[in-house]
């Protein structure tokens, strides 16, 4: 199943966890678990623009994007590191 997930994301693009769960005929919980596993393996990396970017920004995190909660709160974003 982890291999199937990797094969899916290796095609490139942005993938929603819900959609991945459907394609893998599994649950979102399972996909989340596998994503955490891939993160531990170093194959993907969590991306938190709110923390990483806004803190160093000239605007001091006062812009519209940095203020919106979705960026750091509700949306988890992962960058896939290895696309073979």
């Amino acid at each position, binding site marked *: 199943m982890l291999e199937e997930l990797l094969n899916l994301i290796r095609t490139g693009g942005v993938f929603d966890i819900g959609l991945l769960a459907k394609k893998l005929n599994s649950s979102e919980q399972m996909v989340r678990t596998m994503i955490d596993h891939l993160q531990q393996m170093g194959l993907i990396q969590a991306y938190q623009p709110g923390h990483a970017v806004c803190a160093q920004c000239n605007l001091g995190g006062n*812009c519209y994007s940095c203020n919106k909660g979705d960026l750091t709160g509700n949306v988890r974003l992962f960058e896939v590191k290895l696309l073979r």
Partner: protein
Amino acid sequence: MNACHSANPSETSYSLSASHKFPVIALAGQPNMGKSTIFNLLTGLNQHVGNWPGKTVERREGCFTLDGTTYNLIDLPGTYSLTANSPEEEIAREYVLREKPDVVIVVISAANLERSLYLVSEIVHLPVPVVVALNMVDVAEHEGMKVDAAGLSAALNLPVVPVIATKAIGVRELIRTAAQVIQDGAPLVPNKPDIRQDVAQAIQAVEALIRPYVPADYPADWVALKLLEGDTAISRMMKELLPPETWETVHLILRQNDDAMVVLASGRYNWINSIVRSVVERPKIGQISLTERLDRYATHPLWGVFVLLGVLGLVFFFTYTIGAPLQAWLNTAVVNRLADTAGILLASSPAWLRSLVVDGVIGGVGMVITFLPILVIFFASFGFLEDIGYMARAAYVMDNIMHLMGLHGKSFLPLFLGFGCNVPAIMGTRVIDSRSARILTILIAPLIPCTARMAVIAFLAPAFFGNRAFWVSWGMILFAVLVLVIVGMLLNRLVFKGERSAFIMEMPLYHIPNLRTIGLLVWQHTIAFLKKAGTIILIVSAVIWALSYFPQGELNSSYLALIGKWIAPVGSWMGLDWRLTVALLSSFPAKENAIATLGVLVGSGAEAGLANLLAATYSTATALSFMVVTLFFIPCLATVAVIRQETASWKWTALSVGMFLVMSIGVGTVVYQIAARL
């Protein structure tokens, strides 16, 4: 459960030393599965807390008596797996392998079987009797899930006891089941995950090579499996134990099967998935179902685009139906009256001072402040869309389109961040490893219409186009996105050369918006906007006024007119007179300055109001051209500063500014020339 003597654990070994005369139960589990709750419940005050030998990881052990038998209980550190990724994981597996407890109770969460069964999938490979404590049954039920404990037991071929540790429900039954396993003596044969044929053969080959050298405490097949998984501690141990030529052969097999780590984990997840599917019944009601239903359209590759267009249209609709009349009222009732009052109060003052206050400050800053209702509605609309969970989907749908067109996936981040402000969009390009790809993404990021530019468009559209404003502003955003896609496609072809990249995102569930959150967002932005109006916009307004007043106190012979007329030929290609051209230039420090400058130069104090004056003064072709040029003009000063910071190059910064200048003039000219002929 009676109290019993608590043994003092050895400081040098994993064993329980003196207390090992009692049956030993080890509690294993991932963090936050309720393991410690069970431990505390059973041992009460009869527990000892120390450190594991040579580690700073807490070691907790104790004893308890149930049904006349005393047991030693050891609380193993919380571990996600048995691969030595952390000291906790190494301690847990070393304890189980070397001390061989009489039974291991693996505590799993009924509310998150997918995650917690992974440890079970590993522990079943160890030569130790296992009992599964299915904890948090109440949490699972509260979430509408039903977990079939008997089915789980059959699937695992292990005893499974439902438990609610926080309420002490099922704990006695759990210990009695463990006691039964200890008493029966015969080890159970749990079901194990399948291993892909080629990897299974590799494990056998490695096992055959290492068997004579594997320490007695370790099962050779498990050591072979861990070697293929790339377990560093086991690899280090076997490298020391094996003769160099055997290690070379083993190492060759490992290299030939470098994907075994993923294959083995994949097999475990297949095993977990099939178990979960057979024993867990999930609800199909409420929020999740609503999200799924809405997302059938909102994230659909085709319908999602129409939903996005509809949503953007609605934002503009609300902005124009509510914001524009309020803006007009503010202009008439506040700005004009203020200008009249200031004119009366300063009647005896020097003409330049009166003009500075009335035309410069009130005409510029005042005009921008009338802009506030439009901005408030804009921020409230986007805050609402974010809070209900839609904005992440909007970015996802946009990326789908771009991906279909072959755009590089890493453009997603700037896109995701850029709708708010181009500054974080440019900072977001840090995820791109290649410098050339990163620089080119930085160059295109300001093409994404930020809220400041969209708000300026939202102000200008009704001023120029009246009832048609909705369609015009909608078309503007579409046009900006189209240009972004075209540039992105060129970028992909020329720079990224088809290289693929991927992101995984977890979108929030749709939910009822929190009015306080939205209110706070609107409040923060209103304050920030007013601060901007009181500082940068005030300064620019004063400078524009001074340049438009001196030397003779008359606009047409002013320094600004001189400058404006000097650059007017370029503006004339786009159908812009010198005042519109100057308004464009003044938008460099902050986009909103375009409005302030028009207020100063065209005149907001007039009874007709700026909107009516603009509509009466300029043709449709000029208006369209001005809006398009505004959309593609040089990014604001903050964005240019961050481009310099991120590229660490004045050359690239200058190129970016030059590119947008040329692009805006080019697009503006084309739009004007076409519109003028229609």
